[in-house]
């Protein structure tokens, strides 16, 4: 009896130790619709572009269409409402005191600088919990964001749905 009880206690203790809130999503690739095939879109437009003349408006139009198709490329709707822990880089949108309270979040630094903008499924609009934002001095550092991801549809006519995290907690990854 005592043995069983102590075993139970041990199990309880262990589960208590590992009760650090678990995160369902830790990887940016999970945000992409699994059925979305980038290669297929690219090869489709590549075929098209071969039939028009270089530098003509028709060619420019095809590239624009491809850009658009790649952007439309699926948000993984299954992850709506999941708890996430993601690492990436930010573009500050709102500053509150000495911290960034609202920002766009990307998997890599290049997305913050280069155009065209990252596809919607690799961009998250993050609003930090009060006092949990990114310190201004960390604005160019690697940031980890904890929170619940949601898919928000916009009122803009041709706007795509976008990922948002409200009440997020943000931490800068210490540089080694």
């Amino acid at each position, binding site marked *: 009896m005592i043995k069983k009880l102590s075993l139970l206690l041990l199990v309880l203790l262990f589960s208590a130790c590992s009760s650090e809130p678990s995160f369902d999503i830790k990887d940016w690739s999970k945000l992409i619709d699994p059925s979305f095939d980038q290669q297929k879109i690219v090869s489709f437009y590549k075929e098209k572009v071969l039939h028009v003349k270089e530098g003509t408006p028709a060619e420019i139009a095809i590239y624009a269409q491809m850009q658009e198709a790649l952007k439309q490329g699926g948000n993984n709707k299954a992850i709506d409402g999941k708890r996430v822990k993601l690492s990436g880089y930010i573009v500050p949108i709102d500053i509150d*005191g000495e911290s960034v309270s609202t920002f766009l979040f990307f998997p890599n630094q290049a997305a913050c600088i280069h155009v065209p903008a990252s596809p919607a499924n690799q961009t998250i609009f993050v609003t930090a919990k009060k006092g949990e934002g990114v310190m201004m001095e960390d604005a160019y550092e690697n940031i980890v964001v904890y929170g619940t991801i949601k898919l928000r549809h916009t009122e*803009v006519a041709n706007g795509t749905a976008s990922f948002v995290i409200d009440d997020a907690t943000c931490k800068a990854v210490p540089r080694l």
Partner: protein
Amino acid sequence: MKTLWLLTSKSIANRRMAFTLSIISIAISVVLLLGIDRVTKAAKNHFLNTINQTDLIAAAPDGSLDILLNLVFHMGDPLKEVDYSSYQTISNMDEVAWAVPISVGDSFKSYDAVSTTNDYFKYYKYASSKSLLFSSGADFRDFYDVVVGSEVAKKLHLTLHETIHLSHSNGASAHAHANRDFYICGILKPTGTPNDTSLFFQLKADEAIHIEWQSGHFVDMHISSEQLAKMNIQPKHISGVLIGLKNRSDILNVADKLEHFKGENLKAVIPAKALSKLYLLLKNMQEILTLISGVVFVAAIFGMIATMLATLGERRREIAILRTLGATIKSIFILFALEAFIIVASGILFGHILLTLLLILNNLVFNTTVQISYFPDVYELALLFIMFISAIIVSVLPALKSYKNSLQDGLMVKI
């Protein structure tokens, strides 16, 4: 312990001059250390809180900092102009919730005159979504209406309905638009932003008063101000556009669109992103300044120790007498630690009083819009604590020296 206090104070009273100088040097280093910290913090907050809720600023291609400094802080070299039609196209874009055209370049008695529309007062936000408010009057009603910032009104003693004349371009030699009377229709409340030191008038009035400026010269066309107001002149050029979006996650897409704008080359700046660059610049400067004031403090501590060591000669007999009367080594050390304690404590106190006086004086004389706090924050308190502890620890040095001396010295006067 009470006797030790008494002994310390009596001993100090005997060496007033050196003691006072030590306190002054500590006080000055405290003023420097805390003053630099306060001022840079205030400056940072001032910068960071200047613009809020504006998602993008569109202007002619230039560095993002240049655009921000020009259109928000009214500083730096003028930008190239943007066609007014670009503003119209932008404000008609699907993603855009609001767009405010602004044009900078004119001035009034060295204050910046910004031409815009009433939307500026509606949509411009600073700090945490605070709007611009009027302390008296209201926004533009008539063609020649001017809204003035709080500091402009205060410094130049301007009142509502007063007549003023704007100047063409800025600088001391600026030519006044003397033939065009403007009337003050509103005065803004203080904001702590560059709006306090600016005047605002209507874009169409801006275009109108400039039609008599041909290829850089003033040509009097003898048009009365009333006629001019009725001429229905449409703005042609602006300096930039402040933009708010319907969906803020679209910022980069819209920025991308603007930068590939048909008809005109534009640059779209995210204000917060540009501010974060400015912050890094300020941070580096603050670090250097803090380093310098830290060095000043170290010098002050060494100065204190030097005076303590220098006065040891005077105190030889004092210590020797105390030793013969039975003072232990512990008492001698406490004696010196107490002295260091008194010097640093009063140095910090006087330094703080001095700093507060200076800041009050600064606010009275310069009447700046930057709000500098009078009270230390946690960081500063920690800094003071470190100063305190290090000074007391270092006081061991003269104590040790004096203890060694007292072993060799007798009560006899030696020359």
